[in-house]
């Protein structure tokens, strides 16, 4: 019964050959076959969002996905953000990753890959989200450390720096971005 299935997944723009049993989840294949351990194994049953990846741009829980069911679909993990940003001519880290860093939107960091990917999915759809839209988009990602405020501030800071705004100013109708003042002015 424990047959290996051979298939190819498209992860972060690379076509990767996988050999794994049919009952492995996408999270297991990412972590234990492809060594992409950025996607975290939290609850392993859909409750926490630590394993969030993007599938064709949509936020997706890798722990509940049968790996072979996403053959042919575009999978993005946290490891894919920086190369994609650089390939688009950007420098430094991905703007959302940079903002999480700048705003101290983490303590232990376990929830962060999932938070950032949910935030990326939100910003792709809604480039200038309100706080309510952020709350809704991140409501499937639990953080046991931060209290969420700095996470929302990080998203606001990322938007502000994309718009070339001084992040300390009220940017697009959202509350003022307070984290930017703390460190490097959100540059």
């Amino acid at each position, binding site marked *: 019964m424990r047959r290996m299935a051979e298939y190819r997944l498209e992860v972060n723009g690379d076509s990767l050959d996988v050999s794994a049993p049919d009952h492995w989840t996408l999270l297991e294949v990412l972590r234990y076959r492809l060594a992409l351990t950025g996607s975290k194994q939290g609850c392993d*049953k859909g409750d926490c969002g630590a394993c969030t990846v993007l599938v064709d741009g949509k936020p997706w829980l890798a722990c509940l996905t049968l790996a072979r069911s996403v053959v042919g679909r575009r999978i993005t993990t946290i490891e894919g953000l920086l190369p994609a940003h650089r390939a688009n001519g950007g420098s430094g880290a991905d703007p959302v990753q940079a903002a999480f860093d700048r705003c101290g939107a983490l303590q232990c960091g376990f929830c962060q890959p999932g938070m950032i990917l949910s935030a990326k999915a939100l910003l792709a759809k809604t480039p200038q989200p309100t706080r309510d839209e952020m709350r809704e988009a991140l409501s499937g990602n639990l953080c046991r450390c931060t209290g969420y405020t700095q996470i929302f501030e990080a998203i606001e800071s990322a938007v502000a720096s994309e718009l070339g705004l001084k992040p300390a100013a009220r940017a697009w109708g959202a509350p003022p971005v307070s984290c930017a003042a703390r460190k490097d002015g959100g540059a």
Partner: protein
Amino acid sequence: MLRLPQFELVQPSTVAEAVRALAECPGALVVAGGTDLVPNLKHELFTPPRVVSLALLAELRGIRRENDGSLVIGAMTPLAEVAESELVRAQAPALAQACSLIAGPQLRSMGTLGGNVMLDTRCQWYNQTYFWRAALGFCMKKDGTECHVVKGGRTCVAAASNDSAPALMTLGASLEIATASGKRTLALDDFWVADGIYNKQVARDEIVTAIRVPATGAGHRGAYGKLRDRGSIDFPLLGVAVRLELDAQDTVAQADVVITALAAQPKRITKVAEALAGTKPGTAAFDAAVEAVGALAHKQCKPLPNIPGDADYRREMVPVYVRRTLQAAARREGPVHHV
């Protein structure tokens, strides 16, 4: 870390192949988005030799409007798409609202409407790991002989917890089903069996291909109200779907209230239309009728300690959510939710 039990995964590319893949392997199970089945497999509530995934069946995705105005929603359409569809929001607001409150954002991009209709019933003694269940002593629904909710009970009362189901019932929806011997349709009202172990009239080797929602007119009003602990992720502690049909004078001609997360099937509250008929939203008479319907629902619904949440509290919230959801429908608002 929760591992899946071993199984063979089959991913057919036509419905006919899928039905065959189920028929030729007794005990095989269907998987759509996997957001209900995968946790249940991890908890060893099922150990199928084969899992048949509908993921590649593009023909089961999408929402279309028929000539007679009815909506046909493919079983594999993601919940997020149902919630955001302009067609569904305009014609079946209660369904769009219910889907918008299911689980959280990731689960709504993965989970499908067909999977939601076919959701397994839930109980706090059942949706647990094998280790947990073994420690307590198994129950009738899986591996055991007794019920921990109703002592001495002979029927499992695990709760129907699918948010879309009560909304679909108020809308008079039906299922299109593919079987080894052909096709059939089944009204959602006739779908249920009063047994929490398996509460459906759709067999494990049948495939729901689409959900059909009859046309509604200009006087249609619908809304969904959901009680849960947090503003996201959680299953309903109570789900209330309502429908009002207003006549040309804007008075209520027809009304329906269906409540879920009680026992194995959603409950249609009786005498609702009689109470509301002839009243006009925005008047004291309507408000009084709404109050009366809340009292009817309170009398007819008896939440059990099957799902989390204090049963007495859930019962006291029945009239509150019925009143708010009826008022929201009348104002073309909703969903009713605490955040």
